[in-house]
């Protein structure tokens, strides 16, 4: 082919010469310019090539038109799913805060006290109308609290019911309290705060998020593997990316179609000095007690993409029931840190999942900040947090280079009441806590962006695709990935005896080579699209031998 | 009596050296010795197709079954060939006892006619009092029918409706019947298959002669209960299996393909039917044999 084209070129040149044209002029027109334009000089080193490949892949993800396809695209490299650190809302090990801050690039601050409460402290009378409305809300809330407790206590008297564990008991009671309180507050406030009419309430929604974190020491197997090759020995201890998958179910979450306004300006958010000060936890997360598992990357903020107008989180109520399982010997301050860490990771994950539905992901940076509010409660103790998501780039070199940071500010756990007396009355109701909660409800989401601004990387929607087969394929594949169902094939495994007698020592040379490691197949290299295509029965496709298999539409 | 003989027997074994510890233990299996396994012969009313896990009390809940694939459930050995696999059906426990008052009649309401995967005829869910039960459905039975059951034998035969249960003596000659009691106490022993029926031919003394689906005539006692009508699903014998796979779904394995000339299986000489037979009362139960345990 190449040779033939050369011959053709020669022949055309020859013809032109025969025609008496000048060789020089013609060539100059087409191939040469006055100023030489050279291609960019690229670093040919291994590391640079790897980085370029990664950047290309991230660019490809950015170019993918729809949200669903973006998620499929991220999942394509691994058929059996990624090996992820299992971040969830039910397990917070000792000393979890530095790791959480590192993994979410979050600066933790204290929530400034409410202006209203300061006024009360100084003894000034707040506005009478405000006071009256607050009083009604207060009454409603106390009534809801007492009702919830009464109902729960009465329910416990029921004979023959299996005794739930302490964690389950707290979850049941808190679920009742949170639902009652939410209903009372929505009812009481919706007259003054019209935005609450448009709120969508999620009950025990499914919040999941996937992201990559850089700057973590490589695990032992990676070090060993690299040390085994001469040319990689120097890079053996270089940090690697860890993938994180968050899974959580809050008691309740509220969503709205507008965004909350950010409380940190862009200038404040972009501070390379501040980003350097965020604690780093370089050890393997398994050293703290986090476990790993294989699963597909999923980003779910509680609903499916494009289903809703209410795309932005307003408030979520997280559970702290599992903190009961932590030993008392961890101490008070660690419990406080655990609450901070729970707030940070749940808020970050929920915002990331929302951002994902707007076309951003851990490899494609946010173009505008996103905010949410989080409440961690067990019914009595309430901790309030606000979170501002500025950046999603945490992987690879961005761990060092990225000037942006995320912010979280929160309070200590505040008691809403001291106790519920035996006759069902609420004792020592804490107005300050209620005011804080009211403040969260009253926080008006005001930012509305144009579609292009809100979703700069989303070009289309799968429901807009013409081809029904393609729509069906994308929808099914997306649901399959996001359903966390086990893969049809089991994860490949090397048994210990095989490691000893077949891999480390070749003691069974005469054995038939059937297992993947004897066939030189790396099953972990298998990509999502490497599978047998679906056969179309003749009854459907007709007599033709064409289209015997269904087409796939992987992005 | 036998217990005494047993006593003799066991005392004998007791005197033997302690190599043989207790009586009644199955044959000790010794190395190199042929293991003797008793297995039943095919036929004799046992199908070796499934066992049904009956609960202690009667229930209308569909019951779980275990497929036997032609094996004897005791020894586990293959008894019947050509059985195996098939769709797991649920068994509906038919209450065979149709017991009515000796005076007047008990009325029962048909609630639903259902398909039972373990038998060819349909079954009907019947309600009486606060009890639910299944009976075999007749050809034209439908939900809402009222069935009568009585043990009264009037002087003039009754005019029965389909699904009613009466003693043979109470039914007029020519009636089609099914679920026939062979001897008093053996309820609904005969005529269960889809679309079959027996016909009352004549009466003599205290016997009633019935022609069974095999066309043979038998004389039954007049107090034997029978249900009136032809059994449901009459087209069952005209239905084609359709495909080999359907045969597998029904739990039958491929046939051996061997043609047997001498068994007469594939065509038999047509002979005259044997003459009418009087049903004899059921044989007394066989006395249990004692197994002597001398380890020869």
């Amino acid at each position: 082919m190449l040779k033939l084209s050369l011959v053709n070129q020669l022949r055309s040149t020859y013809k032109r010469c025969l025609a008496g044209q000048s060789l020089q002029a013609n060539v100059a027109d087409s191939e040469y310019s006055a100023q030489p334009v050279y291609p960019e000089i690229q670093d040919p080193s291994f590391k640079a090539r790897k980085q370029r490949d990664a950047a290309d892949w991230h660019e490809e993800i950015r170019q993918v038109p729809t949200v669903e396809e973006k998620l499929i695209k991220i999942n394509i490299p691994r058929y059996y799913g990624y090996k992820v650190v299992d971040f969830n809302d039910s397990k917070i090990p000792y000393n979890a805060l530095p790791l959480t801050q590192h993994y979410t690039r979050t600066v933790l601050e204290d929530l400034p006290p409410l202006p209203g409460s300061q006024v009360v402290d100084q003894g000034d009378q707040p506005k009478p109308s405000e006071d009256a409305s607050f009083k009604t809300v207060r009454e409603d809330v106390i009534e809801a609290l007492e009702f919830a407790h009464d109902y729960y206590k009465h329910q416990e008297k029921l004979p023959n019911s299996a005794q739930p564990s302490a964690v389950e008991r707290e979850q049941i009671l808190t679920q009742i309290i949170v639902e009652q309180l939410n209903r009372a507050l929505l009812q009481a406030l919706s007259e003054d705060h019209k935005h609450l009419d448009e709120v969508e309430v999620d009950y025990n929604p499914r919040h999941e998020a996937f992201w990559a974190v850089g700057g973590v020491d490589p695990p032992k197997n990676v070090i060993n593997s690299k040390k085994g090759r001469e040319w990689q020995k120097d890079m053996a201890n270089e940090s690697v990316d860890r993938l994180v998958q968050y899974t959580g179910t809050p008691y309740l979450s509220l969503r709205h179609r507008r965004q909350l306004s950010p409380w940190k300006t862009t200038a404040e958010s972009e501070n390379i000095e501040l980003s350097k000060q965020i604690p780093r936890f370089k050890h393997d997360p398994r050293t703290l007690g986090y476990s790993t598992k294989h699963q597909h990357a999923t980003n779910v903020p509680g609903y499916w993409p494009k289903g809703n107008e209410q795309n932005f989180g307003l408030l979520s109520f997280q559970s702290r029931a599992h903190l009961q399982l932590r030993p008392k010997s961890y101490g008070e301050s660690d419990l406080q840190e655990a609450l901070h860490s729970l707030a940070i990771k749940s808020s970050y994950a929920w915002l990331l999942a929302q951002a994902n539905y707007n076309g951003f992901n851990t490899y494609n940076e946010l173009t505008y900040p996103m905010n949410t509010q989080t409440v961690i409660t067990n019914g009595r103790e309430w901790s309030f947090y606000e979170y501002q998501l500025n950046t999603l780039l945490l992987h690879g070199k961005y761990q060092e280079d990225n000037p942006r940071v995320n912010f979280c500010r929160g309070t200590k756990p505040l008691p809403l009441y001291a106790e519920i007396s035996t006759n069902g009355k609420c004792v020592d109701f804490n107005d300050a806590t209620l005011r804080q909660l009211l403040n969260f409800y009253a926080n008006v989401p005001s930012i509305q962006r144009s579609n292009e601004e809100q979703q700069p990387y989303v070009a289309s929607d799968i429901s807009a695709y013409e081809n029904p087969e393609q729509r069906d394929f994308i929808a099914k594949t997306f649901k399959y990935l996001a359903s966390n169902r086990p893969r049809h094939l089991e994860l490949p495994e090397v048994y210990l005896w095989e490691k000893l007698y077949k891999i480390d020592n070749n003691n069974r040379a005469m054995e038939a080579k059937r297992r993947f490691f004897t066939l030189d197949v790396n099953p972990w290299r298998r990509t999502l699209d490497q599978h047998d295509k679906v056969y179309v029965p003749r009854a459907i496709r007709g007599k033709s031998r064409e289209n015997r298999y269904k087409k796939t539409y992987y992005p | 009596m036998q217990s005494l003989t047993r006593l003799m027997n066991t005392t004998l074994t007791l005197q033997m050296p302690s190599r043989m510890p207790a009586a009644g233990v199955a044959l000790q299996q010794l190395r190199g010795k042929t293991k003797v396994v008793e297995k039943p012969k095919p036929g004799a009313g046992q199908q070796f197709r499934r066992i049904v896990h009956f609960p202690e009390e009667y229930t209308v809940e569909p019951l779980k079954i275990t497929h036997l694939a032609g094996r004897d459930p005791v020894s586990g050995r293959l008894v019947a060939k050509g059985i195996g696999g098939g769709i797991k059906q649920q068994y509906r426990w038919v209450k065979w006892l149709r017991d009515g008052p000796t005076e007047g009649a008990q009325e029962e309401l048909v609630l639903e006619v259902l398909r039972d995967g373990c038998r060819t005829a349909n079954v009907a869910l019947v309600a009486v009092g606060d009890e639910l039960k299944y009976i075999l459905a007749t050809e034209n039975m439908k939900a809402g029918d009222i069935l009568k059951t009585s043990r009264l034998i009037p002087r003039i035969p009754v005019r029965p409706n389909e699904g009613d249960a009466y003693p043979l003596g109470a039914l007029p000659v020519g009636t089609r019947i099914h679920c026939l009691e062979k001897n008093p106490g053996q309820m609904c022993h005969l005529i269960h298959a889809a679309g079959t029926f027996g016909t009352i031919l004549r009466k003599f003394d205290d016997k009633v002669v019935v022609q069974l689906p095999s066309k043979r005539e038998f004389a039954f006692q007049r107090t034997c209960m029978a249900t009136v009508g032809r059994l449901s699903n009459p087209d069952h014998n005209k239905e084609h299996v359709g495909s080999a796979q359907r045969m597998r779904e029904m739990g039958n394995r491929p046939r051996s393909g061997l043609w047997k000339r001498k068994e007469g299986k594939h065509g038999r000489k047509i002979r005259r039917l044997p003459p009418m037979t009087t049903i004899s009362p059921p044989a007394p139960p066989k006395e249990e044999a004692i197994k002597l345990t001398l380890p020869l």
Partner: protein
Amino acid sequence: MRLTKTLCAQHIGWHFKKHWLVQGKRVPKETGAVAELLKLGVQVKNPEDLLNGKVERKIVDIVGTRVNTIPEDSSHPDWHSTVCHSYSDNNVLIGGLPQAQVLTNCIEIQTFPKQIEDVIASQQLPNSIDKSIRHAILASHVLDAEQVKLPKVRLPERPAFNLPRSYGISHERVNRLLVNKLLHETEKLAGRSVSIRRKLIDNATFKTSINKDGDLLGFSINAEKVIFANRAIEAVKGKFEGDLPDLYPMKTTISIPKHHIYQTDNFYPLRTDISCSHPHTIFTVFNKNLVKNAHGSGVTTSQLQARTLIKAFVVAAARARQLHGDSVEGALPKPIVVQSVQTDGRTFHFGVLQLNTLDLSANNPSKNYWFHRQNYDLFSECSYEAGRTHLTNYNGDVFRIFNAFYNN
């Protein structure tokens, strides 16, 4: 060629063994020895009992082992000699609505009470409400992100097929979300003035037991959502006449399972001295995979309606017992009205029960009232196919009735 002579000997021991297999089984003849011995006063025992007598095993209490399950026989602490017909959530009355009517002594009136009918006819709903309800339906049926293993699906015409196991939103969650979202919309319309007088709870248990014509009936039900009000619903004005249906030859208790182990206590999920403790409306979920006839058939429309009635009745009866003491019999001082809604996420059945009397005997002249209409379908199909949501034949009447029930 064989040079030696063939020795035609056989191993005689083998033949003995084969022979013994047959002859080793003997049916002993009756000799009359037992009768003689008994006559002489000698006790005759079966050798089996002597030699292989039962050895009583000693039960050792080991600390830390799991708790022994209490055997379900007469040694059970809750065992009674009288049988109880225990109705629970998953039971179905095989006789359908007529049986439920006889069981609860209710006459059927095929409209709603006048005040509800008036509200349904006259209420003014904003135009945007249909859009919100459509969204609520989609959000609970299709757009929620829960993915759990759904029950197995079998094709009756292809019983050998094993279909791929589908994942999706569980039936319980669909209904929880749908009812919650519909209530949310209703409360938004009603405003604080009404909703402050209502309280909602999930999964409330109600228990009661009643004697009817000598049969003990035990009820233990669960209502997935209950609205309590601070004031009881007013009794329906007017007197209604009607006859109870005839169930002959069935008894009223047919298909209610009979148990010897039961408790007869009364349970109502709230205390009486709470402000919002009057039962207002109960929402129950019908899951066809759990609720089945005893013989395995699906539930008919009449049986489904019977379930709505029974649930309302149990709530009203439990409330009556709580208010007037466990010994209350006969006519109640003030009738108790309970609204009952049953749904499977698509079909809705609305009914109103007025409990006038707790005396359920067949010859009681005063009757309870059961107002209901036929079932309504909220939509005919709601699905997510090929990347697009589908909601066909949405029926706006359902929400109008729902709203009227809430505001009653």
